[in-house]
């Protein structure tokens, strides 16, 4: 059973990995491999009907692990990510919606988030500029929206575990799509890849989340480091415990991500 071979050349280069079984069944558009992580692969496909794009997150079997253990780990990780996404969604945090789950086969079908990662959008925005970044009102506004999104997630009791500007998407609103010349950084901040997320309300875990984001931000966008405080400032206003978290962040900065000095 082959996928429609409308674009054999592209399919050849993309499908160097064997497709998961679910993607071998016919679909209105051939699946494309978007990215490959350490644990899994992300495909773009469609859910049920041709006009609903979706993301398929697939964790293939790891041949180097014992099969029983492999099954259990994969199942556990798929389900824990799915549960966290469902919790966020119910509590009004903007994350991809869940369409379908098959934990035994190792896949998760999610809403396709349009737009691109904030990392790319900020880099486009910065270009070769070296001056006036600290006064860029639109960029600062985006930072504030990022802070609000992270704050909202923490508020409902979820920590991300791998916050970077690649795991924050900027989803353009339908309105701004027509008039994109007006504000380039318009749109809704969507948090993605909650594969390492967990439920936690501890100051420590929340502060580490912010610390990881701060470090990632500093190394991906060194020239924009000056606006990061906007993000923290917006975060502060999001929930009651936020000021405590920011205080904790200062401790974490002093010592690094790991609390114990082991490992």
């Amino acid at each position, binding site marked *: 059973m082959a996928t429609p071979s409308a674009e054999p050349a592209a399919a050849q280069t993309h499908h160097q990995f064997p497709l998961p079984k679910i993607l071998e069944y*016919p679909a209105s558009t051939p699946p494309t491999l978007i990215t490959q992580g350490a644990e899994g692969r992300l495909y773009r496909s469609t859910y049920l009907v041709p006009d609903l794009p979706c993301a398929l997150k697939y964790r293939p079997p790891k041949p180097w692990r014992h099969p029983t253990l492999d099954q259990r780990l994969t199942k556990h990780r798929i389900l824990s990510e799915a549960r966290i996404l469902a919790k966020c969604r119910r509590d*009004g945090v903007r994350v991809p919606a869940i369409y379908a789950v098959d934990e035994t086969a190792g896949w998760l079908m999610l809403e396709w988030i349009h737009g691109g990662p904030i990392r790319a959008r900020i880099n486009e925005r910065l270009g070769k500029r070296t001056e006036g970044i600290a006064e860029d009102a639109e960029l600062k506004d985006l930072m504030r929206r990022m802070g609000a999104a992270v704050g909202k997630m923490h508020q409902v009791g979820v920590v991300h575990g791998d916050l970077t500007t690649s795991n924050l998407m900027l989803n353009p609103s339908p309105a701004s799509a027509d008039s994109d010349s007006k504000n380039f950084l318009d749109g809704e901040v969507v948090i993605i890849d909650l594969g390492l997320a967990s439920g936690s309300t501890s100051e420590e875990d929340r502060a580490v989340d912010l610390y990881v984001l701060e470090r990632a931000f500093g190394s991906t966008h060194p020239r924009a480091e000056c606006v990061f405080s906007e993000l923290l400032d917006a975060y502060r206003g999001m929930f009651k415990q936020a000021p405590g978290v920011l205080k904790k962040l200062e401790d974490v900065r002093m010592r690094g991500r790991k609390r114990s000095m082991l490992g």
Partner: protein
Amino acid sequence: MSLETITLDHLPSSHEVHAVLFRDVKNAPFLHQQLLARNSDFEYGLVDASVVVSRLQLLSAVFKATLTAVNGALKTPNVHSEIVIALNSSSNIADSYRRFGISPSTKDLIAVKVTFPAEDGTEPLTSEQIWEHLKANVEGEALAITDDNISAATDLAKVRKYYKLNGLKWLDDIKDEKLKLKEVETLVIGGMALRGV
């Protein structure tokens, strides 16, 4: 013919989905009785339309049930009963039938038939045969499975109760009714996907 044959992505091409909505069904007790009697002529997924918010929700249940059947992991006698339990966001089977399946008091009814070649090689029923049988046995106005036709039958209070969507302030705060329904649909589909896990 109001019966629609639907092709769903990511299902084997051997499996076909046929679905239709009946409004103001007069003989629900009879149809319910056929299910209880396991009359194989009435092997349909019979869904009470009041707990369905959209076409996508229905198709999600059909997709999930069919995939479970293909994988050989059915929890109920056949793919059609599996459609009914696939709608539930918890894993209690008796509860699923009661809440999402046809009952003697069902007014609006969705009938789904999934066809595939049998193991002994018998050809599956054709869409015309299915339609003839439904038309002859369901007393109600046949309509296409569209979002508009479905939403005319939806009991949102019941949906929100069954999918535990009450007390979500952000949801209640959405002013645009269309947007709100879309969010409800998303939460419902997520709940179905995560049933009992």
